């Protein structure tokens, strides 16, 4: 058992929980959060893949990929949340 093994399984579990949430949840905001959980799970796998037992240094290439992924994810989140706000406004207006 090592840190990499523990967090690798954690990352897989988080990815699966996020996948389940994205499939089952009906609330838009919660579904976006579930997809974010998926992305964190994916990030976990890359960080674990880069990890080496302590005396050795970690592989910087997957780290750069995860940082890229985080920035892409905030862009996707911002667009998804803007769509949710727009959708809400449209639904709210039709009620009047």
């Amino acid at each position, binding site marked *: 058992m090592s840190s990499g093994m523990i967090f690798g399984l954690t990352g897989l579990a988080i990815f699966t929980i996020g996948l*389940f949430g994205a499939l089952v949840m009906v609330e838009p905001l919660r579904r976006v959060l579930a997809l974010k959980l998926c992305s964190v799970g994916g990030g976990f796998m890359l960080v674990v893949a880069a990890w080496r037992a302590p005396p050795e240094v970690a592989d910087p290439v997957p780290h750069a990929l*995860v940082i890229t992924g985080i920035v892409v994810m905030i862009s996707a989140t911002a667009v998804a949340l803007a769509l949710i706000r727009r959708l809400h406004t449209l639904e709210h207006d039709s009620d009047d």
Partner: protein
Amino acid sequence: MADPLLIFDALLGVALIALAIAVLVVRDRFAMIVLFIIFGLMTALAWVRLSAPDVALAEAAIGTGLAGALMLKTLHHIRAAPAAPVPVSVGVVFANMGFCAMVFVGLAIAFMATSLEAPGLAPQVAQNIDASGVAHPVTAVLLNFRAYDTLMEVVVLLAAIIAVWMIERGIEQAPARHLGEIYRGFARLALPAIVVIGTYLLWVGAYAPGGAFQGGAALAAVGLLLLLSGLYRPQPAHRPIARLGFVLGIAVFASVALLVASGGRLPFEYPPAHAKTLILLIEGVVTISIAVTLAALFHGREPEAIPVSETRA
């Protein structure tokens, strides 16, 4: 399991899984977002344990802090909507649960069968780091060895802000809650400190964990504080400046790549003698672009010439 740090890792792993489940099952949507923020900070802690401090910084600042602020803003906007519109049937839930369990088992078997000791690309990075112009391997990968990825990442941010401005065109925002004098006082105290932290993160990225994205996120927090405390209100006249901010990073980044290519080299193949200067220039402008774009993503709607209430009347 004698090593106390391994026990810590196992507890942190369990806490992360429990928080991920809690995010999905908690009823109150405000609690959901707060739990997600806690989850993100715990993730950053786990990534520090996996010796990835750069990624942990980016996750804490962008993936958790800014994303949390964005979600709280959205929740404020949609708070009138019912929390759970239509419940999903139990059969669908169990079918998906079974499906996801199979996905987990399959991935876990694949993961356990994979060696964690593969050499990876670390040796190649270590060999070429002297020619890259910076001493920190992650910055070298981001700004030199795989600079094209980073350029595209900034393009993705630009695409996001264009999409958000188009989606939100003409819609009325929920009126922002008025923040009290204490909050303004806090903003006045905190702003200079955050500016210093953001610039430091950018500068230190050359030889230690940090860099354009973490620094840009810290500077975007300045924008958020200014917007939230009402110290800055976006005016239609500021649109050209904002647009310049959005494209500045891409423009300088791409021009440097083309300039290098025109000298008989490949794009992004900086001459080693000037690599540090070029990387710092790119990082500086990209940081400004990231900060402006992230703050604009938080603000959402483009500042419009005509007040929204008049166009809707």
